[in-house]
């Protein structure tokens, strides 16, 4: 199977290089294994962007190559080394946080610029001047959620259910719990789960219900969240629900009863139903090519390639430059430029690589996302 994968990747890479000299962009992500949904989505998003840019036929052409890291830090470093041998000039880092922490250290040591689509843990960019993120860093999501809930007056008593073996969930939960009191929220119930006991949530929900939580905050991906919603309904508990960007995708789960998610609120940078031309074009192409609605990971991957396009154009970079020269130019560009993409308008980056863009408050109404503001 690995062979098939490598072959298909080579085909993908070759299709982009048909125009001769091109920038070699490499990234690692889980293309197989339990987290494959994130890696394949980011890769496909980036793929579409690269194809669009190459089709424009300008000076900037991309040759894109993704290697599988199966969401494993050690394999990610091997995959990174394979990309380096191939001649990667700028990097898309890794898709998920744990492997990204490992490859980001390599990027820093080798002076190869990295822009990760979706590795959101703070440790990915910490202390590295050449590693940037396209997604929100986890702590920001926690504080933004607390602020949003507090300022909109959705609830006073809040419960948090989080996944304690996941850096993503923990990062958001930590800052949420820390910031909640300053926005007038009282956390009455806090319960956790982990891989292997993530099927039955009766204990967590009973705790939240008995302590009178009016709103339950769910910093997690949508798969466990869908179970929580179903089990809460079965026990007759109907608080307000508030999720984070990982909740995005719940409506596209095949067979999901959308009425369960009615009224669920979430902060997300990407909304596949948005009416602007850029988003609609991307969603249409993605659907034609892969037969499904792109999630936020795909959108992040798409934006990453376009952000590179903009930065490389502005820096007047050429494909014959070496990685180190490009790294310096990219640092200059990314700390000064403003980018508009499908995951946000007026996106800017701080010197430490964190992105600043406005999270959009969404609520699920009649089985579709509707803006809250």
């Amino acid at each position: 199977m690995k062979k098939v994968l490598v072959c298909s990747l080579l085909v993908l890479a070759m299709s982009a290089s048909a125009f001769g000299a091109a920038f070699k962009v490499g990234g690692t992500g889980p293309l197989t294994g339990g987290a494959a949904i994130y890696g394949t989505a980011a890769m496909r998003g980036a793929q579409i962007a690269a194809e669009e840019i190459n089709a424009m036929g300008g000076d900037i052409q991309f040759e894109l190559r993704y290697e599988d890291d199966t969401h494993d830090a050690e394999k990610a470093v091997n995959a990174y080394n394979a990309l380096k041998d191939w001649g990667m000039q700028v990097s898309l880092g890794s898709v998920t946080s744990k492997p990204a922490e490992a490859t980001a250290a390599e990027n820093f040591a080798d002076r190869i610029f990295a822009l990760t689509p979706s590795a959101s843990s703070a440790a990915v960019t910490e202390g590295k001047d050449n590693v940037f993120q396209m997604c929100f860093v986890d702590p920001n999501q926690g504080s933004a959620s607390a602020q949003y809930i507090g300022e909109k007056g959705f609830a006073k008593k809040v419960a948090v259910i989080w996944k304690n073996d996941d850096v993503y969930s923990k990062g958001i939960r930590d800052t949420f719990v820390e910031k909640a009191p300053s926005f007038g929220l009282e956390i009455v119930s806090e319960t956790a789960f982990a891989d292997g006991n993530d099927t039955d949530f009766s204990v967590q929900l009973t705790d939240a219900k008995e302590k009178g939580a009016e709103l339950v905050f769910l910093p997690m991906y949508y798969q466990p969240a869908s179970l929580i919603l179903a089990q809460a309904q079965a026990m007759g508990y109907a608080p307000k629900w508030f999720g984070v960007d990982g909740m995005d995708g719940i409506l596209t789960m095949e067979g999901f009863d959308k009425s369960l998610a009615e009224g669920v609120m979430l902060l997300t940078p990407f909304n596949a139903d948005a009416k602007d031309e850029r988003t609609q074009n991307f969603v249409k192409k993605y659907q034609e090519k892969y037969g499904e609605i792109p999630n936020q990971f795909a959108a992040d991957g798409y934006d990453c390639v376009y952000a590179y396009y903009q930065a490389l154009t502005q820096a007047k970079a050429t494909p014959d430059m070496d990685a180190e020269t490009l790294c310096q130019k990219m640092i200059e560009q990314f700390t000064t430029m403003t980018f508009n993409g499908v995951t946000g308008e007026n996106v800017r980056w701080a010197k430490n690589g964190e992105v600043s863009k406005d999270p959009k408050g969404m609520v699920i109404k009649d089985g579709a996302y509707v803006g809250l503001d």
Partner: protein
Amino acid sequence: MTFLNFFISGISLGSIYAIIALGYTMVYGIAKMLNFAHGDVIMVGAYVCFYMVVRYELPPFLGVIIAMAVCTMLGIIVERLAYKPLRQAPSLAVLITAIGMSYFLQNTALLLWSSNPKVFPSIIGRGSFKLFDGELSVSHITALTIGVCLVIMAALTLFVGKTKMGKAMRACSEDKGAAQLMGINVNATISLTFAIGSGLAAVAGALLCSAYPTLMPTTGALPGIKAFTAAVFGGIGSIPGAFLGGLMLGVIEIFAKAYISSQLSDAVVFGVLIVVLLVKPAGLLGKMTQEKV
């Protein structure tokens, strides 16, 4: 009342572990091998059932029957290709092959059905029985799972104890060489064991995904490990032991979450397992047998 509600949650979780554990324990009891791919056969069964019910709109009952047929075939093929050539190999080699088979099935599923989670439609709806003016509720699926568990347990016990094939199975389990000398077709008997075990896995898959409705290629892996724990807990090789072990594991897990710490529940579950094995090394209902050398 909260206590009783937690108890019922524990039973419903435990009944799922129990039905998976039955498959583990039955194969172990006869073929003396740990079939770590069992959890993944469950996943395949659930996918087949899902496609039958959702895509082809067959009645759920028929979906389960087709899933059972597919899984039985799959069990026989896996046994023939991966385990049979290793009949004379040390048990460690077979164990590693089983783990490899587990990954193979997971990744094949990933290619065939993609990693996007699917929501499994319950085979009997999501209703529940209300007791004490609605204070307590037992979902239909829990009741069905326990019922199916008991039926399977009784049927397996009868089959192994009373039929000729069952007798052949017991003979193979005790001494393959001697059984062969007595004219028992050892290979066919072990294939039959796998066929039955995999057929049960399809039922377990349909029930698992009806109770906890997300379906992914990794769906079977972790419940599989938990159910294996349950089988060891109850005494691996013992059919009633798997049932008891599964139920107890579920109840302990829920109580540990509720009354000790939701973060430590797995540590508590496995801590209890260690204590039980220290006191009764063969598990709750397992029999100590002297290994012949």
